[in-house]
């Protein structure tokens, strides 16, 4: 199977708070074809995100495929509530970096 860097086939890779207790990751694909393939093989699992962020699978709340935007969304539990003592990203806007190094399968 051929692989491609996620950054080559995604238009948007971002993180943000979904309320103060959750962090949500969005990946939007440039081309519906790549999105459909990855959805079909269910590439984006809770286990995948748990591994990338070094957290337990229970802390990955859900992974959702959203066809109208050719997008995948993963929502996880913030290890620290936004703005609480020790938190280092109040808006949760810079937690997407582990996704930038991902190589994903693409249809031949």
């Amino acid at each position, binding site marked *: 199977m051929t692989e491609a860097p996620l950054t080559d086939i995604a238009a948007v890779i971002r993180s*943000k708070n979904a309320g103060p*207790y959750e962090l949500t990751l*969005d990946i939007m694909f440039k081309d519906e074809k790549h999105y459909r393939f990855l959805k079909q093989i269910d590439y984006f699992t809770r286990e995948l995100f748990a591994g990338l962020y070094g*957290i337990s699978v229970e802390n990955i709340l859900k992974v959702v495929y959203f066809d109208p935007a050719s997008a995948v969304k993963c929502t996880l539990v913030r290890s620290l509530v936004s703005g609480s*003592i020790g938190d280092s990203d109040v808006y949760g806007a810079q937690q997407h*970096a582990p996704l930038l190094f991902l190589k994903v399968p693409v249809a031949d």
Partner: protein
Amino acid sequence: MKNDSFKVLSPTAILGYGFPERSFVRGIEKRPDLIAVDAGSTDPGPYYLGAGKSFTSRSAVKRDLELMLGAALELSIPCIIGTAGGCGAREHVAWTEAIIQEIAREKGYRFKMAVIYADVSKAEVLRALGQGRVSPLHPAPQIAAEDVENSVRIVAQMGAEPVFKAMESGPQIVLCGRCYDPVPFAAPAIMKGFDPGLAYHLGKILECAAIAATPGSGRDCVMGTLYMDSFELESLNEERRFTPTSTAAHTLYEKSDPFHLPGPGGSLDLCATRFEALDERRARVSGTRFIPADPYTVKLEGVKHAGFRAISIGGIRDPILIGQIDSVLTQVKGQVSEALGSTDTLLFHVYGKDGVMGKMEPEKNRLSHELGLVIEVIAGDQEQANAVCSYVRSTLLHYGYPGRISTAGNLALLYSPSDIPCGDVFEFSIYHLMQVDDPEALFPIEISEVGP
């Protein structure tokens, strides 16, 4: 026919973020039925609710409001402001109301204004807690009476019902405390008989103004037109457009699940939503449904006081120190431990290592050629926080780590003074749903005549 459509002008994503006057004027020329704006967010963190302060500047909010009020009065249409002052507590509402009164005085405007408050007393929350009417929004933990007692300020997100009631007296301006973000955009349309699912979905998009357009912007104007079976979105700046993808993608923004969006009294179901191109620049949306919930719940937001903060910022460029930074910071922590009170917290944020992602940082063994260090101390009073921060900073500055050859100092301190008192620290303590029998009762309305 006028009654078959309802036009809503959204000037900006947050009141005070600004917008190009040209876009706004183009919107006004299209004769909207309503100007609405969202002024709030929990994104800036717990401080602003705790301190009763706005995260936007007074001059920027005044500038935006001057244009909006002027246009609303000229067209004789309502202007609705949601989550006044950023957090929508009484202090935030009063801050915004004073700006509105100042504008009215300066411009000689006279109009009727409805103000809706969203503060919830501790007694009210305690009563609800005792009756089992308060439940946490996962993953927030369940709260006890003590958490309610320790909160400094609690607000509830109002639904559309208090706005319906406020609109009955025909106000020009409706100034809302904390409210569900789409409400200012959707409530007047729902009153006129438009579908709540479509009205709230339109509100969800308009509350972020042109963020859902491409290229996106939180500082530009959008017109949303609601019909009985759909709504349309148009950027009021020719450089932007709404495409089916940009419009659909917005549903993901800051939400955990794009198909089900819960709010006061029900949730939006997007499972059958269709996003279509109306032409090159406009998108049409249909099929979104509102599913009423029983019992009716409102979201509570509360914060507690967590101490006082002082910080010091320094850089490290010495590779001998950088190579053993973790152990040096651990040793320094040990050495200063006797100066730390039992309730004091000392944190080191090491930028260039894991300052952004902390424990979730996957690149655990890579270090930059220079590190940025923030020493953070939180204590029970400001004086103690300052004293501990100063002690930690000077200990680290002169600490004799193994192999040290740079014996004059370990930190490139960024400023003089090197230590910065930051004041109050707050933390979110309540993020819960509360069941209510009457969606209006929590939100008192005051009607007044504004102006000379």
